[in-house]
């Protein structure tokens, strides 16, 4: 029995390492082949080049898609964070009948098949006579970003001791002053973290953008279009690599900020819990 006990963690940690490899290996091939001279991604590499990256800024359609993605991402991040702040504050601070079902509804897009969410919105937007554009993409992205924003913000708001705000009022501060001097500084990291998370999701999101956009393409839609042409694969890999690094960077910063917020309110959890 003790033999098993000693053997188990060793076995488990090798499994954990293998699992990490399984998670990371596929993604690592994108950057590897993006600097390969050959157009087909196969081993051995035929040579190293930055040629595919140099081509990127010379593609006008790509520049347009980048702008579109930035516009959509920033708008979706701001809107969903604002809506997330309201909802997260309400959920963590107040108790009222219907609180759980409402929370469930707001979180639902997280677990529904995206295609179905996307075509449902498409139907309604067409019924309402909205012409498809970046605006409709933003509307869709906000819906799927809110659950993530809520998760980040709730972990920032949760341990927030209500007596901190009372203490501020007790020391003579007005309601607005309390918000500015206590509430905001306490939750600011969580808010920034939510903005970054939502921006990243919007930047990477494909299905909803695919259904709800008109003629303007976002970056994932641009990539999707290029995938048809085998010769353009290296360029797509280069672009994909840049997107990967952007996501890595943004999410790392977001996570660091979220932890700082959680530590302030002495609360663990967030994206993990």
């Amino acid at each position, binding site marked *: 029995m003790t033999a098993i006990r000693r053997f188990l963690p060793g076995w488990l940690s090798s499994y954990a390492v293998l699992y990490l490899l399984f998670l990371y290996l596929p993604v690592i091939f994108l950057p590897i082949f993006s600097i390969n001279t050959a157009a087909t991604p196969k081993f051995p590499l035929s040579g190293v080049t930055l040629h595919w990256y140099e081509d990127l800024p010379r593609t006008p359609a790509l520049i347009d898609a980048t702008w579109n993605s930035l516009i959509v991402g920033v708008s979706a991040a701001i809107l969903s964070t604002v809506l997330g702040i309201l909802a997260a504050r309400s959920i963590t601070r107040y108790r009222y009948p219907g609180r759980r079902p409402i929370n469930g509804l707001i979180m639902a897009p997280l677990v529904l098949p995206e295609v179905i969410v996307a075509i449902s919105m498409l139907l309604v937007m067409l019924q309402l006579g909205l012409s498809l554009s970046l605006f409709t993409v933003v509307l869709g992205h906000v819906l799927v970003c809110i659950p993530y924003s809520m998760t980040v913000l709730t972990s920032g708001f949760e341990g927030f*001791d209500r*007596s*901190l705000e*009372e*203490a*501020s*009022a*007790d*020391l*003579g*501060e*007005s309601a607005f*002053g309390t918000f500015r*001097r*206590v509430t905001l*500084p*306490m939750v600011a990291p969580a808010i920034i973290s939510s903005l970054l998370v939502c921006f990243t999701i919007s930047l990477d999101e494909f299905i909803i953008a695919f259904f709800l956009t008109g003629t303007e393409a976002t970056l994932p839609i641009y990539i999707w279009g290029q995938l048809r042409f085998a010769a353009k694969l290296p360029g797509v890999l280069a672009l994909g690599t840049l997107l990967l690094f952007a996501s890595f960077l943004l999410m790392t910063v977001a996570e660091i900020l979220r932890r700082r917020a959680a*530590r*302030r*309110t*002495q609360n663990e959890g967030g994206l993990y819990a």
Partner: protein
Amino acid sequence: MLERIQSERTQPDRTMIEIRDVTRSYGAFKALDNASLSIREGEFFSLLGPSGCGKTTLLRMIAGFDTPTSGSIAVDGQPMDGIPANRRPTNMVFQSYAIFPHLNVEQNVAYGLRRLRLDAGEEKRRVEEALAQVSLTGLGKRRATELSGGQRQRVALARALVMRPKVLLLDEPLSALDKKLREQMQVELRRLQQAVGITFVLVTHDQYEALAMSDRIAVMFGGRIAQVASPKEIYQRPVNRQVADFLGGMNFVKAEIVEENGASLVLDTLGFGRVKTDKPKAFVRNGGNATLGIRPERLRVLWDNATAKFEVAGKVVERHYFGEITHLIVEIPGLEKPLSVTETNDFGADDIPVGTSIRLGYDPEALVAMAD
């Protein structure tokens, strides 16, 4: 500085807080039921009771975090109706201390001063002074998250005192500290209150804390104030069994009222015979019976041939050793429950074998009559 505040104190019996017929109900539940109380200027006043008795509700209504459903509260003669917490002359030490985690010690203490727009030197001086009052000099730059429980408590105190409130409200301020630190802080808080001369209102569920620190105590049960008196009177002359029980061990003996007049009562009991006692101020007779109470430490073992003017005889059935004292359970013929006796170990009470017949002496002054 401390002397200055003290010398500014006006006549000692001025009322600082006047609570009149205050009720706070949540739907059908009454957290506070028609409470009236007046707290004097410069007094250390405690609201004592078990959790859910309404003491915190009352404190929060004085601070302005809760509003009476009916009744009124006045502080320093000013009615507090409609005055929000941030414009009341009271400051609070929260149970969780509510130290702002994003600010350091100095910034926490200066938090409320910022609104007063003092010049920088004056603000700094007042912060230093407040930190000195709570023995935190030199820790001003510490981050709030780096403080121990006791230090957080001191910061909370300094942050409230620096505002020079008319009343300092303390919500179970010592409950998060361990026993030793708690006892040390009791002494310090009492000293601090005497030094600054501000009216302190303390909420606690710990009877020893209330007894040790207060000038007067209000004991509360179920939203009602049961008794308001000095610690000594509350302990020695509780108005009913509930108060007596909450403030420590008490032997209860069934009694029949034989005679009642303005100042005294004559009671018949089985174990103690016929007893004449002072009639408590708030005594309201309820039928022909009453309860007679005596604290375990007011019964003493009579050794060998020693006698007392008043004594009862019985047999030791249990003995419990507590270091400096021993607790004896003594069966008295005629009493339905045995008596608890607390005796110091100086004379060998810890060596009395179970089963020994002993006699117990008492002072009739120690007997308390309580309404049933």
